[in-house]
Structures are given as structure tokens and as C-alpha cells.
């Protein structure tokens, strides 16, 4: 099945520097299947028009198609269509939220984050805290970078936070968090719960009704879709009560110089011409993804992850960080005192595409007391052969470094 699926991703068939490509950077952005590329192509060839505006056929068709993707997304996440807002991506959604929730914060109120968060889920909250005098409390994690769930629940009880914002899965280490339990633990305190689903959206296909979070953010480009588009889910009353973030056309009800009234969510958060083509491309990505069996794909990714771990553990001097049991298929490692950049650069000369550095998680790296890692992130379009090529290249890389 996987060999068939791999053929759907044209870029994976290409040579890079005359070598076959082993793409292990899906946590940064996934490759795109042909159906997504075709949808984008077809839109500009045959369907291009602005949405929600013209009286003409093309505009009506574009609007229908664009809005149909909102339905697909709502179905994917198991929420209502008016609870999903199109944004530029996870970062944009988090900024909208932190801005919108600044109102509810006061002096010494607590925002709970984890040390595993991406900078996009730290800095906007830091700004909100600076404006309001609120404080940021961090959930405890181990030396290896694994969340201590029971200590986390205790911290929530002790701090009674106004807001919790947590990644469902860590981009740097791949750890999957039991956010459902933490959300439950925060219920008695009326905490607003935000889940950063940038990494879980594709691998875990979360059911937001089951998670019971108040808000959820993600980026389409990490789930087979185009860049520049993503979303924000919000429980409708909470979402609709947020103040407007950016203003302009589309999101208004009436405008006069005496004053302006805004539309309700989701429109009130979607000013200006949206990323129409991006949304339509993402619609094709959702169709593609949902045509594949969720459990089969996940089981396959997990087996690849296990294989990768097993092979890596056989190499002396490799240290693997994070939670290797509950993981979306990311392996973040260091080798003795070698610099992650040297390893990644040498791997690249074998056609192995990995990421090296701090992965936009500097506080996490500081906690682990390292400057960065080499990160291998898997998706269902990887295969065992990719991993074998990676291990062979890594062995030669190590040999070169130790010469």
C-alpha cells in the first residue's frame, strides 16, 4: 500500500544533487500529493475568482468550493462549521488567540505552558502577560524532555490557571501529550484550554469533541496542504466573544464613519480576501487524507518509528531525547559531542534531508542543556528503505567526523 501512496508524491521521486531524496523533515512541512498540486493548478487555470463578492458564475463557484472546505474541516475535527476560522496558520491562530484573550487576564493571573512549546506558542502569551501582569507557569518535564503528567495535574490544581496552552504533540521531540486529561483537570477552575495541534493534526486526526478543548490551532502545510493557510477552532460562544483581531472588508456588518458593526464568528476573524487557493488545495489534502484509513496509517508510522529507534539504538554514542513510546514519529538525537549542524550537513550530502538546530524550541533545548538536536521526522510516505539509507549515511558521517 505504501509503495502505491509514495507514487502520489511527485517530489519524492526526484533526485536531489543526483541522489534519491530521503525526506525526513515532515514536521517542518509535509510533501504534497499530486491531487493537492492539481487542485491548486486547476483553481488558477479554470476557477479563479474572488469569494463572497461577485454576482458572476465563477465567483459563485469559487465561494461554494471554498466554503465546502470549511465543512470538510469541521467534519475532520468533529466540530461545527461556524466554529472554524481560516487563518494563515498555527502562528497566526495563536496570535489571534493571545490577543483576544488578553482581556480576560489580570495582574498575577496564571497562563500555563510547557517547556516543550514551539516559540509560536510562547511568545504571544509572553506578550499578553507583559501587558496584563499575568504570570507564566511551566508544566514540569524530565531531564529527557518528557512531561510529568501527575506533577502537571498538581500544578494545574495549585495555580488554577486562567489559560492553558499546550502542544498536542511536540515538534522538537515528537512526544504526544495526554491533553485530554489535563483539560479535564482544569475544568473546576474555568480555565480556557488551547491545544496547539500543528503536529497532531495529520498524524492523530484529533476529535475535538472528545478532547473537549476550548481552542485548537493548526497549519495546513503540515498536513499535505499548501503553505499560508491554517485554522483556528473555538467553542462557539467563546470564539464569538473574542474581540476582533484584524479589521477590514468581509468581516464587517455595516460600516459608516459613525461606527462599524462586525459580523459573527467565523467571519469576524476573516478580514480581507482570504487564501482562496490555499483553502481549496487544503480541501484536496483533506479528501486525500480521509480516503486513507486512519488506524492503518498510524500503525504504519508507528512501526517505522520503532524500526528507526531500533536501528539508531544500535549505534554507540547516540542519545535519543523525548518520549519514545507516545510519539508521532519524530526522533531527535545527538551524537557524543558532535555538533548537530555537522551531522545534518554531512547527511545532506547523501540526499538525507533532516533538520538540525533548536527547532524553534530554545527554552526546551536550554532545559535539556544542549544547543540543538538532529531531528528525523517521519510521515506515512517514508519507508524502511529510507531509514536504511539514513542509517548507512549516518554511519559514514560518524566515521568522517571521527577520522
Amino acid at each position: 500500500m505504501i509503495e502505491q501512496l509514495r507514487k502520489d508524491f511527485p517530489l519524492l521521486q526526484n533526485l536531489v544533487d543526483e541522489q534519491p531524496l530521503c525526506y525526513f523533515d515532515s514536521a517542518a512541512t509535509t510533501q504534497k500529493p499530486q491531487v493537492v498540486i492539481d487542485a491548486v493548478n486547476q483553481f488558477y487555470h479554470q476557477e479563479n475568482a474572488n469569494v463572497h463578492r461577485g454576482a458572476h458564475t465563477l465567483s459563485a463557484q469559487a465561494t461554494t468550493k471554498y466554503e465546502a472546505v470549511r465543512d470538510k474541516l469541521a467534519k475532520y475535527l468533529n466540530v461545527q462549521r461556524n466554529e472554524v476560522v481560516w487563518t494563515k496558520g498555527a502562528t497566526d491562530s495563536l496570535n489571534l488567540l493571545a490577543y483576544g484573550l488578553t482581556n480576560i487576564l489580570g495582574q498575577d493571573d496564571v497562563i500555563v505552558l510547557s517547556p516543550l512549546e514551539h516559540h509560536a506558542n510562547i511568545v504571544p502569551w509572553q506578550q499578553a502577560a507583559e501587558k496584563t501582569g499575568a504570570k507564566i507557569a511551566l508544566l514540569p518535564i524530565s531531564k529527557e524532555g518528557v512531561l510529568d503528567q501527575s506533577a502537571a495535574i498538581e500544578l494545574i490544581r495549585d495555580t488554577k490557571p486562567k489559560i492553558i496552552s499546550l502542544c498536542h504533540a511536540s515538534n522538537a521531540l515528537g512526544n504526544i501529550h495526554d491533553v485530554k486529561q489535563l483539560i479535564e483537570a482544569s475544568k473546576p477552575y474555568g480555565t480556557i484550554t488551547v491545544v496547539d495541534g500543528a503536529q497532531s493534526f495529520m498524524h492523530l486526526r484529533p476529535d475535538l469533541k472528545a478532547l473537549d478543548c476550548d481552542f485548537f490551532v493548526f497549519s495546513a502545510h503540515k498536513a499535505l496542504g499548501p503553505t499560508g493557510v491554517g485554522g483556528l477552532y473555538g467553542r462557539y460562544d467563546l470564539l464569538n466573544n473574542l474581540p476582533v483581531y484584524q479589521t477590514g472588508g468581509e468581516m464587517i456588518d455595516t460600516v459608516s464613519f459613525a461606527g462599524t458593526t462586525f459580523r459573527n464568528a467565523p467571519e469576524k476573524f476573516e478580514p480581507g480576501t482570504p487564501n482562496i487557493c490555499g483553502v481549496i488545495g487544503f480541501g484536496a489534502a483533506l479528501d486525500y487524507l480521509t480516503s486513507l484509513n486512519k488506524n492503518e496509517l498510524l500503525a504504519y508510522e508507528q512501526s517505522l518509528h520503532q524500526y528507526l529507534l531500533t536501528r539508531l539504538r544500535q549505534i554507540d554514542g547516540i542519545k535519543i531525547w523525548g518520549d519514545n513510546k507516545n510519539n508521532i514519529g519524530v526522533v531527535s538525537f545527538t551524537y557524543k559531542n558532535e555538533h548537530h549542524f555537522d551531522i545534518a550537513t554531512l547527511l545532506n550530502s547523501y540526499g538525507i534531508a533532516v533538520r538540525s538546530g533548536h527547532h524553534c524550541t530554545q527554552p526546551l533545548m536550554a532545559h535539556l542543556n544542549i544547543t540543538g538536536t538532529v531531528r528525523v521526522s517521519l510521515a506515512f510516505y517514508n519507508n524502511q528503505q529510507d531509514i536504511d539509507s539514513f542509517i548507512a549515511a549516518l554511519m559514514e558521517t560518524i566515521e568522517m567526523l571521527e577520522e
Partner: protein
Amino acid sequence: MDINQIQSKLNSLKGWQAKYREIMLLGKQLPALPEPLKTPDAQVKGCESNVWLHLDLDESQQRLVIIADSDTRIVKGLLAIILACYNNALPQDAQSIDAYQLFEEMGLIKHLSPSRGNGVKAIVEQIKRQVEVLQ
């Protein structure tokens, strides 16, 4: 090796592994900077990895003496190449040496990530700035 020897050696090597091996070897031959010299002032901004650089003139001949280090082997090798371009030059000649151009000619810029390419640029610019201050 002087810069011409380095250049012809690198050009003669086939394949990126061989070139990187040679670059790392050049880095190894560059003496390590003593820890006390790895100060924030000496750090080159705009490099993704840590690079420290000190520049002065030698007393008797008034030629450039540059010492530098990095925490990555490959960048240290690149530093060795840059230093081979500038060390021993007269300050007035240094402004006309374009190490970045040389890296481009050797095809190294294309292969390095853009941030590394910028790093090379940042190092070269820092050298030129400091030379200007000396003059």
C-alpha cells in the same frame, strides 16, 4: 597550504563527502581559540553556529593576523579557508580580497544552506569592518 593550494585541492576532489572531509581537515589544523578569547565581543553575528574572531596587525610587518574558531567542524574548516585568504595580507590589500566570491567559485555557497552562506558573508564583512578600524 596557501589559498591557491586549498582551492586547487578542493576543486580536484570529486563528490561532496571528499570535499567536506578536506574542509574538516583544514579546520582541524586551525589552532583552537583559548576559552578566555571566546568572548561575546569576538562573536560574529549572523552565524547560526558560534564563531569567534580576533583580528590584529603583527608588530614588525604590520600584516593581518586573524585567529578564529567555531563550535562546528565544518564552519571551522570554512574559517580556515577564509583565514588563508586574509592572513598575512597588508590591511590596504585586504579590502580588495573577496573571500565570498571565492567560495562561490568553488561551488561551496550553492551547497551550503543559505544561512551558512550568510554566515560566510557575515564573517567576511566582520573582517573587513575590523580592518577598516585598524587603518
